[in-house]
């Protein structure tokens, strides 16, 4: 079966857009083919800075013929209806129609045959539409045609379209169409500098090979492999180790069609600047890799660049040029760093009075004061030194105003640590400057130094409470202030450090520190707690744990100690994995179901202690006794915060519950006995509420 080759040749496509564009092209073309009844065998898309390419192989040469039946009017219907039917079906007369009988009467049925079209004609129809509606994140107009409405929008000017279709054994046909004055053909171009001439291509195989001859590696994965291998080798050959960087590799592979890896160096003296600053400079501004000394793990005064040409002088000029730029950049960075060191962190703080954090939440200075106060309150709860915590909160944001952070926002916090150490702050205070931003996500490291923990909690809780107070909560996919991440950070800080904290109290304290009038102060703590519950569920789900248990624990009410919630959920999860747990859950659910039905029937609840004198059967008595014992035991265990023991106690309920359901008929004929038995069932439910609301647990 024939194959399609499609190439869209343009001016340089932004690196960050290439991979998605290739995937979009593949998806759009193949979806459309399938929708047109052309089921293909395989497809693959490629991207380079100057082209998107797609090969689809094994496309049927023709669409299948389509036969459809169309139901017409009733036999004997008015002539207008009959004429309409004939027109719609293309039948000459009713003689060509079938008659079908159904309960409503006899109907004419027209058979319409739609012959399949040649695949190449279908392609010529669908491809221009795909090109015109291609989902670039940003697109533009260009050239003389942009003077008229309706001109093509593309990511950068589009110059040529190659579209061929045919069998391996034959000369393929050009899929003929035209977009914005560009007619399809089979001509593409090689590397911009090394092989710029036109190349005539027939199908994917010779296309890819001819491009390779013309110094274009079509497949970005191949370019990445080549860069990585060469870079590692080049570093290794000189006794260094490449500092790998996947994002940078992805980007660099999108900037070259013919990667040539070269190594340059810079003056040793720049290594006095923090390594992260050197790396950020070299990486962000120059898109080059850094290398380290494998013996010490420290950065070496070398960098690796990826050029797009095999230069006639072997790359000497390119290396020299890059070295000049990197030298200038590093000397700027060094200058910034040294300038920053001249000003104490606290001396930067007054400037925060001019900087608005959020229109409704005041300036950064006000925010820092709130965090200081809250951190000082949290400090004793997390065994942190109050004075050090206050100091850390006071200084933690100051590096935002330094030159280095202004230049490289990603080293915020880290620079704070360097500057704090340089001005002789305590190690914990310095660490907190960096660590109070952590954890940044589900896999980021959680700080353990109590001072860092206190400031990190205060920072995040102030943010959460603040945005809750002004009703700027995350909705759907929108979370511009990263509040979900902040809440998850709080959960992880508490759980990993085994901290005991009443979130309601801390939130109330944070709320009291706000100058803004909260939108709904009454509901805020409960609302925020529910948000934490949601985050906890997401976190557990991502870990593959049972997230429905979070609801079962939260449903108990009054739960605002995250650590206890997490522990309870863990214990519950383990318990439910045992046979005792599973059976007890089944028993409790059965009790709840029966109760639910009877409560509805009688329109009343069955609260209150059962009457022991009404027990007629041993199983009733045994259950009542077990409930009494288990409740006492479980409550004692809960009071000790020994949730595993509470669960073990619960397990003792299983035999009497099983026996009860086996032997006892709840709906006794004597209404008094029935009521008493329902009350006993209710007791099971309330006994188990010592650990969780089992009715919220999914089966």
């Amino acid at each position, binding site marked *: 079966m024939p194959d399609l080759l499609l190439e869209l040749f343009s001016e340089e496509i*932004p690196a960050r857009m290439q991979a998605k564009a290739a995937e979009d092209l593949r998806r759009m073309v193949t979806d459309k083919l399938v929708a047109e009844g052309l089921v293909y065998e395989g497809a693959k898309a490629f991207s380079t800075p100057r082209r998107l390419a797609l090969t689809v192989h094994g496309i049927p040469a023709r669409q299948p013929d389509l036969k459809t039946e169309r139901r017409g009017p009733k036999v004997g219907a008015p002539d207008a209806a009959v004429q309409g039917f004939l027109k719609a079906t293309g039948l000459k007369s009713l003689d060509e129609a079938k008659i079908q009988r159904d309960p409503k009467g006899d109907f004419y049925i027209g058979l319409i045959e739609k012959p399949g079209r040649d695949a190449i004609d279908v392609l010529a129809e669908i491809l221009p539409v795909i090109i015109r509606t291609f989902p670039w994140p*940003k*697109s533009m*107009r260009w050239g003389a045609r942009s*003077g008229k409405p309706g001109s093509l929008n593309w990511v950068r000017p589009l110059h040529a379209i190659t579209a061929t279709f045919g069998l391996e054994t034959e000369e393929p046909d050009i899929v003929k169409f035209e977009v914005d004055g560009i007619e399809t053909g089979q001509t593409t171009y090689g590397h911009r500098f090394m092989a710029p001439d036109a190349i005539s291509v027939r199908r994917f195989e010779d296309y890819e090979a001819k491009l390779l001859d013309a110094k274009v590696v079509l497949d970005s994965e191949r370019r990445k492999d080549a860069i990585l291998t060469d870079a590692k080798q080049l570093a290794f050959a000189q006794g260094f180790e490449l500092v790998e960087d996947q994002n940078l590799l992805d980007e660099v592979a999108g900037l070259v069609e013919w990667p040539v890896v070269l190594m340059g160096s810079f003056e040793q003296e720049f290594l006095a600047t923090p390594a992260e600053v050197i790396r950020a400079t070299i990486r962000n501004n120059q898109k080059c890799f850094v290398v380290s000394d494998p013996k010490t793990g420290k950065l070496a005064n070398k960098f690796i660049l990826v050029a*797009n040409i095999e230069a006639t002088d072997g790359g000497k000029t390119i290396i020299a*040029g890059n070295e*000049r730029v990197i030298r200038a950049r590093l000397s700027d960075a060094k200058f910034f760093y040294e300038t920053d060191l001249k000003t104490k962190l606290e001396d930067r703080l007054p400037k925060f009075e001019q900087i608005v954090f959020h229109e409704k939440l005041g300036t950064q200075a006000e925010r820092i004061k709130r965090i200081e106060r809250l951190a000082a309150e949290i400090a004793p709860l997390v065994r942190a030194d109050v004075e050090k915590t206050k100091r850390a909160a006071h200084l933690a944001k100051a590096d935002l105003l330094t030159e280095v952070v202004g230049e490289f926002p990603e080293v915020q916090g880290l620079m704070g640590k360097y500057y704090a150490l340089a001005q002789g702050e305590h190690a914990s205070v310095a660490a907190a400057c960096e660590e109070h931003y952590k954890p940044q996500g589900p896999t980021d490291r959680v700080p353990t130094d109590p001072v860092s923990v206190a400031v990190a909690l205060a920072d995040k809780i102030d943010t959460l409470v603040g945005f809750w107070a002004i009703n700027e909560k995350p909705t759907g996919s929108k979370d511009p202030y990263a509040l979900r991440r902040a809440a998850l950070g709080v959960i992880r800080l508490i759980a990993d450090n085994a901290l005991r904290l009443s979130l309601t109290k801390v939130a109330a304290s944070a709320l009291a520190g706000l100058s803004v009038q909260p939108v709904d102060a009454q509901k805020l703590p409960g609302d925020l707690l529910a948000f934490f519950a949601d985050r906890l569920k997401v976190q557990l789900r991502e870990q593959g744990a049972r997230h429905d248990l979070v609801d079962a624990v939260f449903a108990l009410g009054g739960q605002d100690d995250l650590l206890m919630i997490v522990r309870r959920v863990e214990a519950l999860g383990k318990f439910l994995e045992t046979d005792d747990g599973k059976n007890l859950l089944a028993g409790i659910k059965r009790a709840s179901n029966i109760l639910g039905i009877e409560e509805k029937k009688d329109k009343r609840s069955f609260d209150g202690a059962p009457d022991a004198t009404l027990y007629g059967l041993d199983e009733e008595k045994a259950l009542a006794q077990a409930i009494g014992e288990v409740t006492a035991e479980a409550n004692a265990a809960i009071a000790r915060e020994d949730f595993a023991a509470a669960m073990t106690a619960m397990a003792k309920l299983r035999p009497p519950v099983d026996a009860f359901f086996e032997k006892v008929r709840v709906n006794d004929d004597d209404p008094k006995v029935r009521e008493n038995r329902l009350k006993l069932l209710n007791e099971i439910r309330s006994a188990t509420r010592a650990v969780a609301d089992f009715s919220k647990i999914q089966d």
Partner: protein
Amino acid sequence: MDASLPAHMRPERSFQGFILALQRFWAEQGCVILQPYDMEMGAGTFHPATTLRALGPKPWNAAYVQPSRRPKDGRYGENPNRMQHYYQFQVIMKPSPPNLQELYLKSLAAIGIDSAVHDIRFVEDDWESPTLGAWGLGWECWCDGMEVSQFTYFQQVAGFECAPVAGELTYGLERLAMYVQGVDRVYDLNFNGRDGDAKVTYGDVFLQAEKEYSKHNFEVADTAMLFEQFKMAEGACRKYLEAGWKDGKREAHLMALPAYDQCIKASHVFNLLDARGVISVTERQSYILRVRELAKACGEAWIHTEAGGAA
């Protein structure tokens, strides 16, 4: 590169030779070679030959040097490549020709940058000027890891869609010349290409000015006067725009250019105030917005002029 040039005129030896080579190259591509606009501005884009001529249907090809004044970038002549006054070389071609990238690469060859030994790259950079209400897509052009030019397809200027689209090239002249001359300090650039006593450096020409203007921009510039000038320029711009509508009907405009001068003026005065540090963060945004409003109104007036393409 033109081999017949005398040594002192060669772009790799002489800053002025470098500029002349670029002018000559673009003249050969059919551009009119203009002289710098006689007003202070932050970038060559502000020149009416770009901002206003990018609007409307009429073809327009021009190239010119424009001094850029960035009061905040002054470093008292102590930084090797940051200055409050430097040159930009600006090319605008409307509609953008299909081979604009190739022309650009040829222009690099004309100033001594050979693409067989240099690594030239087009790296994504979307251009936006909030003060001009303008944006476009294009690249930073890199030569061996150094940004040497800005390449933009204007999509919108002064709040109006460009139809047709103009292609704009901006060369940072000093930086490029430093690269081809192989000097690390801008003041060491050979300006006239001569040797010995006859040699004039960039420092000879501009170092004194850098020191003086840095002091002026950061320490002394009269802020009360500048605040007043901003208001006056803004007022004058609005006044001229209002008076320019022919017969008071918003169909044809007769005074877009004088009005636009006042917009340029306001923009530069704002930059000076900003350098003096007397504009707060929140005010800053509102000043930018005020200049943009002027730019938009000037753009609207321009497309109603005869040169702007009004029918």
